[in-house]
């Protein structure tokens, strides 16, 4: 039986038939980790870079997306001669546990019957569970030490969890535009998104997939609202200002501002590639994240004795994961005596800046990796 049968696309994956115990105490009877890799693993298996994707990202980092046909979400950062150089590094990215691009999640069969999916019964998962699933993949690939673990936003949470849980497996860690805990404000935004989804009549108590329905309206609203949090006021003003799509002046009849139609477009394209139950599952995992809570409420203890080299990056206009949260991470790392670089990149593009063309960020990224490679004796 192929676990990807129920999906329109066959994602590259590895299947662990012994399943996986989740932090909540439920055991997944089997675990599928869908992933993509780029570049070549060297003989010493010492050049692997794991990329952890964000909430609505996936493993298609630099390729045309199989569903949307759009180019990879980080193809400006990962590739030959780019900051994460695929001529030099073996780059891996796995779809997160709970995701909807091939890894075990709400779209996976619950038991032996392939038509019976987990759906809303998918157990609650955590960032730690996501990392455990990635660890299974990394072990499976025969890699005992990752040269670097890199990720932005929710990906950055996974980076922190990796460094805390498997310090000996991570030579360098790059948590970008992230935080060591999901703040009340972040949880609040996520909750609005979830309410939008679950109150859509097409959500049908989470069993929409049985009847071939999709809570498009709710999912699109969730995406629209979240998208606002990814941008800055300056970025919105620069991109759209108060321009109207429907004319040059307000007519008081069916006026549409450009920013409205942009968000509507963001919402409608999102529902074509993302599963509503996955969205609920993953946003919840982010909400649960509080790394210090796993270590007696002292973030420094999470990194005690670490030999990993860290580079913490934030963006000046990011108000979803503001610099202060990155500074907290950097200071905790200092308290742990860790080797840490910390830089706030000046940008007016908001949280999304880590995905966009930010030359200073890209220079810092490649410089940090080059420095680490030198220390690690990587050719």
């Amino acid at each position: 039986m192929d676990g990807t049968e129920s999906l329109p696309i066959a994602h590259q994956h590895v299947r662990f038939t012994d399943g996986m115990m989740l932090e909540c105490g439920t055991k997944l009877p089997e675990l599928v980790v869908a992933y993509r890799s780029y570049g070549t693993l060297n003989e010493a298996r010492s050049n692997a870079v794991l990329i952890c994707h964000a909430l609505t990202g996936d493993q298609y980092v630099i390729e045309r997306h199989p569903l949307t046909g759009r180019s990879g979400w980080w193809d400006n950062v990962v590739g030959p001669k780019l900051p994460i150089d695929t001529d030099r590094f073996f780059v891996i990215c796995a779809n997160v546990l709970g995701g909807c691009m091939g890894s075990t999640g709400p779209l996976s069969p619950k038991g032996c019957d392939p038509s019976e999916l987990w759906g809303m019964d998918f157990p609650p998962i955590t960032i730690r569970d996501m990392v455990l699933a990635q660890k299974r993949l990394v072990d499976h690939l025969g890699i005992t030490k990752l040269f670097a673990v890199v990720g932005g936003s929710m990906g950055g949470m996974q980076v922190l969890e990796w460094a805390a849980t498997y310090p000996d497996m991570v030579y360098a860690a790059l948590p970008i535009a992230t935080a060591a805990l999901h703040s009340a404000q972040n949880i609040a935004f996520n909750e609005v998104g979830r309410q939008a989804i679950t109150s859509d009549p097409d959500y049908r108590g989470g069993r929409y997939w049985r009847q071939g329905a999709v809570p498009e309206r709710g999912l699109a609203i969730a995406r629209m609202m979240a998208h606002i949090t990814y941008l800055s006021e300056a970025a919105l003003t620069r991109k759209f200002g108060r321009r109207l799509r429907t004319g040059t002046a307000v007519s008081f009849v069916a006026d549409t501002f450009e920013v409205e139609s942009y968000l509507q477009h963001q919402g409608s394209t999102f529902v074509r590639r993302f599963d509503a139950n996955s969205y609920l599952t993953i946003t919840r995992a982010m909400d649960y994240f509080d790394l210090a809570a796993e270590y007696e409420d002292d973030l420094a203890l999470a990194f005690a004795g670490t030999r990993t080299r860290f580079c913490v990056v934030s963006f000046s206009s990011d108000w979803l994961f503001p610099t202060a949260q990155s500074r907290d991470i950097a200071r905790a790392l200092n308290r742990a005596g860790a080797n840490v670089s910390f830089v706030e990149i000046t940008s007016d593009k908001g949280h999304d800046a880590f995905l966009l063309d930010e030359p200073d960020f890209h220079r810092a990224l490649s410089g940090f990796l080059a420095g680490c490679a030198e220390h690690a004796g990587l050719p």
Partner: protein
Amino acid sequence: MRRARGAAVSLPVQVIEPIRFVAKNMRLDQRLIAQMIKPGSRVLDIGCGDATLIDHLFRTRGCDARGIEIDMAEVTRAVAHGLPVMHGDADNDLAYYPDGAFDYVVLSRTLQAVERPREVLRHMLRIGTRALVSFPNFGHWQVRWQLLRTGKMPVTAVWGRPWYDTPNIHPCTIADFFELCADEGYLVEEWLAVDETGGRSPWRRSARLANLFGEQALFLLKKV
């Protein structure tokens, strides 16, 4: 210091040189500092700029050297060169380092610009076994002479900015610094006064003469 990137419209703006948090024009020769650091040491350089000293210590002395810098452009440059530097400043970030984390904590040409010099020194000797501190000497004869002759705040090559536009809010003399070390119970293991180019000066035996003729001073301190 902040530059908007990728702005659709860029208006012609008057370029105003920002206040540097460290006065680059009175840079003490970093080789003098490096010479005082034993190979293989753990070093923290506060106000490290583009991390030249850190790079030097790593490459020539095998040190585990790290830095803190307040100027974000310098931090970005240092990190882009693969050097472990974090954005932060002497007044606010030293508290987050554990006791005895370093063999040497370096503060070059920055002491006069921090808000609380005494507290900064205390932190330096808490997190490090030794502190290396350099600062421009306000007791230099030219400074004294200018104040005496004109009755106005001195402006010299070393003290290059007018009083209302200087980051150097806590100038001190070599004599002042000796006094502070005595008050705080720091042992001065080594000290020297240098001229602007960093060359050693001939009056190193006499603190009084150094205070008159030394443009900059470098101290190696240890807690008694």
